[in-house]
């Protein structure tokens, strides 16, 4: 057993995990929060609201995440760098770093997929719920907040959990735009030591552990919010 190698591998992966978790938390929170208004817009009666959101969701679900990441990092970065006001502003060092672009891409991707999950859950609710709430004199906004959203959330939760695990896996792609997360850490150790299997399997183990933690967390939430409805 080569302890020196494994120590290096461990600390590099630990360094990567911090960034992976940071990305996961930021994009997970922003993406899931953005998904709810998007879902309501997607089923809105107004075409001017529904159609652009439909296009947005179609685009993000119909193209590979890696393409979205490149489009935002290289494409948007290129556009911003060509604008002199942005290029020479004090904000440029921040705008140049890859992390912001990665957050933007993964957030929009998660929002698009989760919005579609929310849409399915909202449209799957029985029509009687809306009718009952309106006949009780609830304002349409109260209807959404007090009646539809809590029920839709309960139905959507398993699918949302799956989508957040996909987000965890998608964070590995940001290694291609120079961000040092778990995948990049494994690649660094791999290229420095030529020990392909140990490095990659080490990273795989990290992802398995994170997936297990996420799965346990989500089923705890599912259990918790399902409690009043069990006999």
């Amino acid at each position, binding site marked *: 057993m080569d302890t020196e190698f494994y120590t290096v591998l461990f600390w590099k992966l630990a360094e990567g995990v911090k960034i992976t978790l940071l990305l996961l938390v930021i994009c997970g929170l922003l993406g899931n929060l953005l998904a709810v208004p998007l879902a309501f817009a997607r089923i809105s009666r107004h075409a001017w609201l529904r159609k652009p959101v439909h296009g947005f969701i*179609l*685009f993000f679900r*119909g*193209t*590979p*995440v*890696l*393409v*979205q990441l*490149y*489009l935002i990092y*290289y*494409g*948007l*970065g*290129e*556009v911003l760098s060509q604008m002199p006001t942005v290029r020479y502003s004090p904000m440029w060092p921040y705008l140049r770093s890859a992390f912001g672009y990665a957050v933007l891409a993964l957030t929009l991707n998660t929002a698009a997929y989760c919005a579609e999950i929310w849409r399915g859950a909202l449209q799957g609710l029985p029509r009687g719920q809306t009718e009952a709430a309106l006949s009780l004199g609830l304002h349409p906004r109260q209807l959404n907040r007090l009646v539809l959203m809590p029920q839709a959330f309960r139905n959507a939760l398993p699918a949302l959990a799956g989508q957040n*695990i996909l987000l*965890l*896996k*998608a*964070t*590995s*792609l940001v*290694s*291609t735009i120079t961000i040092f997360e778990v*995948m990049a850490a*494994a*690649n660094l150790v791999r290229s420095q030591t030529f020990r*392909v*299997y140990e490095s*990659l*399997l080490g*990273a*795989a183990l990290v*992802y*398995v552990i994170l*997936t*297990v933690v996420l799965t346990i967390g989500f089923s705890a939430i599912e259990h918790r919010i399902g409690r009043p409805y069990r006999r």
Partner: protein
Amino acid sequence: MTGFSWFSALAYGDTGWGDEFVRGALFTLSISVCSYCLGIVLGLFGATAKLSRSRPARAMATFYTTAVRAVPELLLILLIYYSSTSALRDLVVGLGLARDFQVNGFVAACLSLGVVQGAYSTEVFRGAIIAVGKEQVEAATALGLSRRQTWRLVVFPQMLHKAIPGLGNLWLVVLKESSLISVVGFSELLLTAKMAGGAENRYLFFFSAVAFAYLGLSVVSSHLFDLVERQTGRHERGHG
């Protein structure tokens, strides 16, 4: 940059990137088709293993699907890519077939994406087989069909129809996942766009073009799958 126009940039021939993009798109499609087919074959084996009475077969299939779902595709692709190339090389050199042997990047790409697809297909087929129902198998056994006949004549055809929506989704997944192969340096659609974008210093334009190419492929193929589903569902509805 002067003289840049969208038409000349995507022109077919020496001056534009049109021919490179067509080649890239063909590579994307052929990698996707090959790994999709490999995935279906692995999925059929995986599903039968998961539903078999043998405990080791079940355990192996469960390990396979769990591992693939918990580990990022990019990591799996790198892992399978490197291990399959070196394993195949060792095999060929070890058997004395050649002194040195480089595994074709295309084969390694299909192999790695196909193994990932196989895990997803396993779940699709498992669900479809369960959906066929026990009574069908019992009826077939009562009619005196052998186990093999039951599978070939009763379960398989019905299962296939139930699996079509899931398989349609998997095709959309593999089409998008094929872009990950660009990371190991195989010039399919995405890597072509990256090279073109770098050479022309027009990343936004080339990546947008490629994004819409993927979108077009996705939309067209999801319509095709809807069509297949309706066609195969016709006689089933008639009886229902």
